[in-house]
C-alpha cells in the first residue's frame, strides 16, 4: 500500500448527539494527526449529521482512522476519499474598506474577474463572498492583500463523493430489523 502522504477527505455519518465531535476529534489527536479542516452539518438524512474532515496522511493511516471512527457507537459509517473521488469546495469572506472601491479602480476589476459576490456594502466597508477551490481563494486573497483586507475568513472543505455512501440503506435495514 502507498506510504505517500496525500490529502484525504474523511466523511462520517453520525447520530446528532452531544459529545460526538469530541469523541471523533480525539481519535485524530491520539494519533498525533493534524486536522486540516473539519465541518459538520445536517446530512441528506433527517437527524443524521455529516462530518467532513480533511487530513494529510497515508492511505494506510486513513484506513485505520476510518476503522477507529466506525468503532464509535454513535458513528453510523465512515469513509475516506481522495480529491479525485470527491467534488469539494470551500467558501470565504473578505471585509474591505469601501474607500478602496473609489480610490483603487483595479479593485473593481478584481471583483468582476473573481466570480465572487458582494454580500453587503456600506459607507465604511463592503463584504465579498467567494466559493471555490483553495488555490482560487488564495489567489484572490493575494490580490486584495496589496490593498489591505480588514477581515478574512475561510471555511473548511465541504465535499460530496462521486460514489454512493448507502447510509440510508443501513438505517432502513435497522428500521425493518
Amino acid at each position, binding site marked *: 500500500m502507498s506510504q505517500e502522504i496525500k490529502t484525504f477527505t474523511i466523511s462520517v455519518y453520525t447520530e446528532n448527539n452531544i459529545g460526538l465531535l*469530541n469523541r471523533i476529534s480525539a481519535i485524530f489527536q491520539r494519533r498525533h494527526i493534524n486536522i486540516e479542516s473539519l465541518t459538520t452539518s445536517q446530512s441528506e438524512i433527517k437527524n443524521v449529521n455529516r462530518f467532513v474532515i480533511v487530513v494529510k496522511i497515508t492511505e494506510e493511516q486513513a484506513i485505520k482512522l476510518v476503522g477507529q471512527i466506525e468503532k464509535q457507537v454513535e458513528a453510523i459509517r465512515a469513509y475516506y476519499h481522495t480529491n479525485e473521488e470527491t467534488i469539494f469546495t470551500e467558501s470565504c469572506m473578505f471585509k474591505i474598506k469601501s474607500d478602496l472601491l473609489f480610490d483603487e479602480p483595479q479593485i473593481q476589476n478584481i471583483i468582476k474577474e473573481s466570480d465572487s459576490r458582494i454580500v453587503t456594502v456600506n459607507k465604511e466597508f463592503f463584504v465579498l463572498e467567494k466559493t471555490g477551490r483553495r488555490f482560487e481563494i488564495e489567489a484572490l486573497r493575494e490580490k486584495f492583500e496589496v490593498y489591505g483586507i480588514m477581515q478574512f475568513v475561510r471555511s473548511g472543505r465541504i465535499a460530496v463523493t462521486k460514489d454512493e455512501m448507502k447510509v440510508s440503506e443501513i438505517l432502513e435495514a435497522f428500521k425493518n430489523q
Partner: protein
Amino acid sequence: MNTETIKKEKNTSAKTEHISGAEAIIKCLIAEGVDILYGYPGGAIMPVYDELFKYQGKIHHVLTRHEQGAAHAAQGYARISGRVGVAMATSGPGATNLITGIADAQIDSTPIVCITGQVPSHLLGTDAFQETDIVGISTPVTKWNAQVTKAADIPEVMAKAFYIAKSGRPGPVLVDITKDAQFEEFDFKYEKCTAVRSYNPVPKTDINAVKAAAKLINNAKKPMIVWGQGVILGKAEAELKAVVEKSGVPAAWTILGASALPTSHPLNIGMVGMHGNYAPNKLTNECDVLIAIGMRFDDRVTGSLDTYAKQAKVIHFDIDPAEINKNVKADVAVLGNSKESLALLLSELNTNKHEAWHQEFKDLYAIEYESVIKDDILPEKEGLTMGEVLKEINTHSNGDAAIVSDVGQHQMIACRYAEFNHSKSNITSGGLGTMGFALPAAIGAKMAEPHREVVAIIGDGGYQMNIQELGTIFQQKAAVKIVVLNNEFLGMVRQWQQLFFDKRYASTEMTNPDFVTIAKGYYIDAKRVTKREELADAVKEMMASKSSYFLEVCVEKEDNVFPMIPSGASVSEVRLS
C-alpha cells in the same frame, strides 16, 4: 433523546410508576440483574444513596475505600463472571478517581457501567463545587458515555449503557447524572435496549472467509494458534478446544486469554509475549500458518513487528473490524463472534495430528525447563522464589482457584506458573498494566462468585497502591486470599534497570512497613514467611482458611523474570537469561 435510534425489548408487563430519577436509577440496575455495586458517596450522588438505603436487601452496595477501588472491583466482578460490573461515584474527584479503572476496562474489553453524580444542571459550566467535565475526561477511555440532565431520559440511557457495555466487544460506559435529574419525579417504565441503529456489535461471519481459513489450516505443515480474551468474552472455550483437538494445532495464549483452555491440555503450549514461554515465541517465527483468535497483536505479544511471523500466512478471527490489519496484516480475516466462527471453522477442518511439529514445542520446552523453570519452581539457592510460591498454591488449589494478579514480575510469574482448570480464572491488568489493580479486583471477583477460591498475587509495590481496600475486605468479610511477594523492590523496573540501565536502581528500592501488622490492624489473619521450610505449611493454612487471609512471602530481592523478549526485539530473540 431521539428514540428512533434504538430498539427496546417489548415488555408489556412493565408498568409505569411515578418516582424520582434517583429511584429510577436503582430500578434500572435491578432490572439489569445487578446484585452488587461498588462505590463511594458524595454530595452530587446523595439522592441515589438515599434510595440505596431504602433498597437494602434488594441490591448490595459495597463501600470501597477509594473510587479507584470501586472501578477495579467492578472489573474483577465482570472478569470472573462475564456479567456487567457497576461502580458509582460522586462528581468531581469521585468521578476522576474512577478514570484509571475505566481506562483499564477499555483496553482490556471489560464490561462495566460507571454512574457518576454531577452538579445540578443550572450549575454546569460555572466551576461549581466538585464540578468536573467527566464526560469530556472519560471520552477517550469509554466505549460510550452520556450526560443526563432530565429524569425522563434515565431509563433509556441506562438501558443503552448496559446494552453497549456487554454487547459486541465489551467495554466501559459512563453515565453522568445531574443532581436535579436525580431529584426530579417522572413516569418511569423500564425496557431493556436490544439494538442501537448506529452500532453493529457483531459483524456477520463470512462463510467464505471461514472456508479460506480452513483451507490454509488443512494444508499447513506447521500451524500455530494464538488465542486471546476474545475466546473467553465470546464464551467459545468449548469451540476452541474442539478446533484444537480436531486440527491437532498447538495453541498458545496471550495473558488475557489464559485459562480458556486448561493448562494441562496437551496442545496448550503456553503463553506468548515478552515473558511468555520460549517455544511459542521462538516458533511464531517458524510456523507456516498463524491463527490468531480474539487477540489484538499487542506490542508486548509481537515484539518488533518488522520481524514478526513474516514467513507465516496469518488468519485473524476477531469481533472488532478495527483490529484487522491494525498491527499485523491478515491474509484471511474472519469477523464475528468467536463462538460462532470457531463452530463454523470446526466443521471445515480436517482431522490432523502434527506430531513432529508438536515435538518441536516439547523440545524447546525442555530447554526452557532446564534453564529457567526448574530454578523458578524447584530452586536450590537459599532465597525464596516467586515461582515456588505459585507451585505451592497450585498444589493446594488443584488448579481450581481464580488468580488475580497485579502488575510486574509477580504478575508474569503468576501467569506463567498458575495452573488453570476453568475459564475466567486469570484476572489481571493486561493492556493498561495498572499497579494497584489486584486487591480491589480480587474483592469484586470473590463477591461475584463467592463459591470460587480467589487468590490475589501482588507485589509489594502494587499492594501499597490500593492497600486501603483491606478495609473493604474486612467490612464485607470478603474471603480473599492475599499473597504479597515482597522483594523490597519495584521488581520489574529494577530488572530493566539491571539489564538496560547498567544497574542504576533509581527509585525502585522500597523500605516497606510491617505488612502483617497492617493486615492484623484490619483483623485479617496474617502470616509472614521468610524461609523455605515455612512456605508449604503457610500456603496450606491460607488455602484452608474460610475467611480472608494475608500471606507475605519475602522473596529473593534481585531475581529476574525469564524468558524475556527485550523491548523492540524480535520474538525469535527471546532470551533465557
